[in-house]
């Protein structure tokens, strides 16, 4: 398997404010990389551009598999992302959220499979509770599961450790370690606990 993501001269301007200027980088699977920088430096914007949620003002992001460029649909099937501003459906239960994201991605999953997944992040006992009743740390763990349920080749994490306790952080470390063995992980962070998760890919200024 030969996954590659190429960032070609990415710039992003919001109104007249330049957030990213001429960013180029290449990552090849397997491995983990970090996007570093202080608050407001554009880490989240760059990660959203890589995920395809934002269009760069200039430049492009290429997803390549064995040298072949992926279509938008293939890219969607290959990417999982967790970010603070990407929410789950709060009136639905943990199991219903997980079931929706699995089925939307075309996975023929059974509830028993999903319950096993919830077990991994200590949410099995809360599977039938609405997400609105969850703590922020529990929501973060569930977001990780929804990003992983389709076993993505590319995992994008924006401040993944926010609101997590030590057990949650251990799950992140384990997930990053596993993902980095067969795919690509890109982590946007300025949390000192997460700096060692991968090699620096881009350092952004304020």
């Amino acid at each position, binding site marked *: 398997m030969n996954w590659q993501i190429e960032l070609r001269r990415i710039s992003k301007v919001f109104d007249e404010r330049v957030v990213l200027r001429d960013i180029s980088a290449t990552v090849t699977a397997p491995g983990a990389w970090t996007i570093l920088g202080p608050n407001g430096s554009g880490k989240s914007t760059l990660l959203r551009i890589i995920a395809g949620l934002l269009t760069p003002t200039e430049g492009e992001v290429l997803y390549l598999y064995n040298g072949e460029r992926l279509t938008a649909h293939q890219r969607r099937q290959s990417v999982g992302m967790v970010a603070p501003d990407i929410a789950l*459906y709060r009136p639905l239960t943990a199991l219903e959220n997980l079931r929706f994201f699995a089925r939307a991605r075309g996975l023929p999953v059974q509830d028993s499979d999903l319950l096993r997944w919830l077990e991994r992040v200590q949410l099995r006992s809360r599977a039938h509770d609405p997400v609105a009743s969850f703590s922020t740390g529990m929501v973060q763990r569930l977001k990780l599961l929804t990003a992983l349920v*389709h076993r993505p080749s590319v995992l994008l994490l924006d401040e993944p450790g926010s609101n997590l306790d030590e057990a949650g952080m251990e799950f992140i470390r384990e997930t990053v370690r596993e993902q980095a063995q067969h795919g690509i992980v890109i982590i946007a962070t300025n949390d000192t606990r997460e700096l060692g998760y991968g090699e620096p890919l881009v350092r952004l200024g304020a």
Partner: protein
Amino acid sequence: MNRSSGWVHEAFAVFAKDWLLELRTRVALGAVVLFAVTSVMASGFALAPPSGVPAEVKAALLWVVVFFAAVAGLSRVFVVEEETRTADSLRLAVSPTGVFVGKLLFNTVLMWGLCLVTVPLYLLLLEVPVRSASLFVTVVVLGSTALACATTAVGAIVAKATTRGALFGVLSFPVALPPLLVAIHGTRAAWLSGGAWRVATGDLQVLVGFILVIVPASLLVFEHIWSE
């Protein structure tokens, strides 16, 4: 894990999720049913025989009620994803076509449900004579489907706008007016005309044509709007 691809299963997943959310929150159902039932009851008491209001006026009033009930509830399907910050979760997992078709299915079924409650109540209270029941049902099904398509399309366009309330009204007017007028004409034919099907053939063709044009056109526009 094996995985099926394509927008059909995506659309059904979105449709099922939206119904589950609606049954939990009752945001759209509350707005639609409250508006429709109140309007029909008010019209029923005000215009019931022997008020002498002609059937032409009653046909127009029926569709005005259905249209405003649709506007009250159906425009919310995209807005709610933006307001609850779940839109990006959808963008990551589902293709624009899957999202649009899922939301359109949801709105269409909601609209049919609305008509199922409103129309018999309206006929009962206003004592409207229906000469061709089969034509009337056909006009209601096609008219409500066309209005669901129109409100879904406009709802998708305005979801990200900050002044979405005003924008929805402005954009809905030209988009929803043609099917509304045709549905009123077809309803009048079903209620009054002897050769009702012959009179309403053009109306039905316009409604079907409207649906066949607006759905693909909306899909084309939606791909660009939804992406950013």
